[in-house]
């Protein structure tokens, strides 16, 4: 089975908000680029599918040179090929992104399974997988937490509110990966990391149409309030906390 994982490196989502600023459509800051958490889940599923089917997977990213961190990680985890669609860093319209990723996937010869993260960890729109599936005319399973090769298709577990559901899907198909115990990205072996650093990353010229939504500003809303110390013994503190929560979040609690 052949898989393509679409990976995206983003500014470290664990960085303090104050360390990131927004300028001319770009999020900037003295913060490292890391592989997006859900793209990590997608990459893990790609590795698992390739291993289970004795197939292979490729990795594609869209953006500037900052995207190479994620692609190197994919290579270290065994990607047969890594490609970067070269466009300027920053926000990209999801439909534009889906079109360019589709063209890149076609250039790589296509795949049986296309894997996305459920949403990017930075712009957070969560629609690229769906748009890609639409462009490719393929079925989409969103929020996948586990996937197993089953015959010529896949047995898939997907996240739903309060639980999960399982089902089967024939390939080719598109999956968007979510976090779960089965999609936690493994650590690459050091020898593979060392080898990955020597492997080439294929560059494909990208073209932005300029159409679609464009981000012009970004601001964090201030929601924090000064805290209040609840005095008394442990029981009094617990009761005080419960009262505060009832006051702050209408509808919770119920009885006295």
């Amino acid at each position, binding site marked *: 089975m052949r898989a393509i994982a679409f990976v995206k490196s983003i500014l*470290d989502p*664990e*960085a*303090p*908000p*104050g*360390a990131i600023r927004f300028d001319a459509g770009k999020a900037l800051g*003295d*913060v*490292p680029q*890391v592989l997006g958490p859900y793209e990590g889940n997608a990459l893990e599923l790609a590795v698992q599918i390739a291993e289970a089917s004795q197939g292979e997977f490729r990795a594609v990213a869209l953006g500037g040179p900052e995207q190479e961190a994620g692609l190197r990680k994919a290579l270290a985890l065994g990607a047969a090929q890594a490609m970067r669609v070269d466009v300027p860093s920053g926000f990209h319209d999801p439909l534009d992104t889906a079109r360019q990723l589709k063209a890149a996937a076609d250039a790589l010869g296509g795949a049986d399974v296309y894997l996305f993260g459920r949403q990017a960890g930075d712009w957070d729109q969560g629609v690229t997988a769906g748009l890609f599936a639409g462009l490719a005319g393929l079925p989409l399973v969103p929020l996948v937490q586990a996937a197993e090769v089953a015959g010529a298709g896949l047995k898939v577990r997907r996240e739903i509110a309060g639980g999960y559901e399982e089902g089967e899907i024939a390939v080719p198909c598109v999956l968007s990966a979510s976090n779960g115990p089965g999609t936690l990205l*493994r*650590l*690459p*072996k*050091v*020898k593979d*990391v*060392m080898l990955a650093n020597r492997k080439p990353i294929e560059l494909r010229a990208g073209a932005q149409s300029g159409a679609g939504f464009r981000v012009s500003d970004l601001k964090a809303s201030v929601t924090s309030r000064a805290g209040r110390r609840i005095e008394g013994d442990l029981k009094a503190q617990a009761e005080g906390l419960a009262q505060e929560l009832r006051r702050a979040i209408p509808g919770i609690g119920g009885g006295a």
Partner: protein
Amino acid sequence: MTPHRVVYWNIPGHAWMYLPFAILVIVFGYGVYRRYRVWSIGQRRPLGPLRPRLGRLLRHAGLQSRVVKRRMQGYAHVALAVAFGLLFIGTLVVMLNSDFGLPVMQGAFYLWFESFTLDVAGLAGIIALCVFLWRRYGLKPKGLSRQWPDFFVPFSLLVILITGFMLQSLRIYATHDPWGGYSFVGYALASLWGALHLGIPAALVIHRSLWWFHLLLAFSFLAAIPYSKLFHLFTGPLAIFLSEPTRASGLDSPNLETAERLGANFLSDLTVKDLVDLDACTECGRCQDVCPAFASGKPLSPKQLILDLREHAHTRPSEPLQLAIKDETLFACTTCRACQEACPVDIEHVPKIVAMRRFRAMEEGEIPAGLAEAVQGIEERGHPFRGSQASRTTWMDGLGIHEWEPGTPCDTLLWVGCAGAFDPRAQKAARALANLLLSMGEDVQVLGRRESCTGDPARRAGQEYLYQIQAQQNVELLQQVAPRRIVTMCPHCLQQIKNEYRDFGADFEVVHHSEYLSTALITGRISRAAGGKRVTYHDPCYLGRYNGVIDAPREVLAGAGMDLTEMPRHGTDSFCCGAGGGWAFREEGAPRVNRLRAKEAVDTGAEVVATACPFCLNMMSDGVRAEGGAEVQDIAEILWEQVSSTLVKD
């Protein structure tokens, strides 16, 4: 008449003893060869200067300085070693007399050495062996096993010594030896034969039979030495000689680009020293007794680790080490080195554990949860504290400390460390230290955004590749900064920059803040305070055991006017807080190591528990809180609290 003794009296045909002796030599030689064959598989490391090694050999093997740390069994061991040393010399004297014709078995030497001294030695040996047997089978300490060889070895020695005395007594009895009183034990026993009315012919027959039994038992015992833990007679001193002679020596820094295999998964990946260590283990259990992992019920006993590796080395030497040592055992270690400090023969457990971790981490990508995320944090953002909302400089907001800028000189560089920068509790300690330095008028700078993790958690986790990248980057940066000295509050950073970075070209003056502050107190740059609280001090492993900094933190506490009460385990014998080896970033089940240590601290009745490591600060704070005990503070916080109003500026 000159006092003397007829050698081989009553033993006609004694020359036949050379037949079993020849067998002994062959069996013994083969046993040694078997061991050597395993050692020769190991990687050879350069020995370096001999003098410190010889000094350590004299202290640890000659004077048995570590053995006697445990009084009862220690002194018994020394007594046994001296006794058998003397008895061996006594046997050589007999050989010189009979085989080389040197008339040494006569005169005062015969009376005072061969008779009196050797009787004292034999008696001391018997008492020592009885102590050993009573301790192992009477007291039944947890660290000692009670398998059949554990009984066989002391019991055989006891039989050899007792039969030796019986032979002596029969000779004295049968010959009416006029100098028999010098052999006072044999003489006393001889009177027993008289009381039992043993006939002389019977005494002669018993003596002759017993002589051959004694000889064959002694030869069998000698032949068994290379096949038993008694081989530590040879491997113990060898392991001591091959051990790293300085306390601060760290781990080796392999060239990962050229290494055939990353880390150790076969005997051939270990060093000769590692393999000698396996055969040097006396199974005394001291390492296990002091191990925080073992004490807290984790699946690691340093003793069993060595015994499992030894079993593996001698039964399936070409098989992977993974068959002998499980991952949960390897990753249970806190790398505190208490085991190494306790080991009488200087077995180095931690380098073996880290070498095997390297294989798991780098060749197989296996690092336990929590620690893996910390290592990934170092790789991605230069520190292991995931989820921290602080930046590298948040802790110093409003303090007036300057970040170093390229091209500017730097006198004192404060290496804050990741904990001081990102951990809320350690940030307070960092601020106290910065306040102290600034109050002294120090031209102190920090690297701020340029500072990155030393890589210590990655190295201890086995991720040597990431560690070496961090080390090289940090050394290059520090060489560019070229500070006159570096002060750090983190013993793990101290260990890296001062000791382990030497493999990457570092040669900086690095001091721990305890050393810096104690010097400032001595020179009067900080005035002493009085009226402090009752305090106990927890020695961080990487400061005390790794770097030998024991007195300086106590001098700081004394300078702060605190009244120090020691915990039972302190100094180089301190007990780990449970944070080392990457455990600061892992979930630990009960009983937790920090609770065990915190209880010791709380039991002193101190009002304040002091420490000098940001990781210990966190672990002890957590543990002491759970034990319902006192406040936990870094020594810098205590000193700052006590002296902030009376600081003497330059």
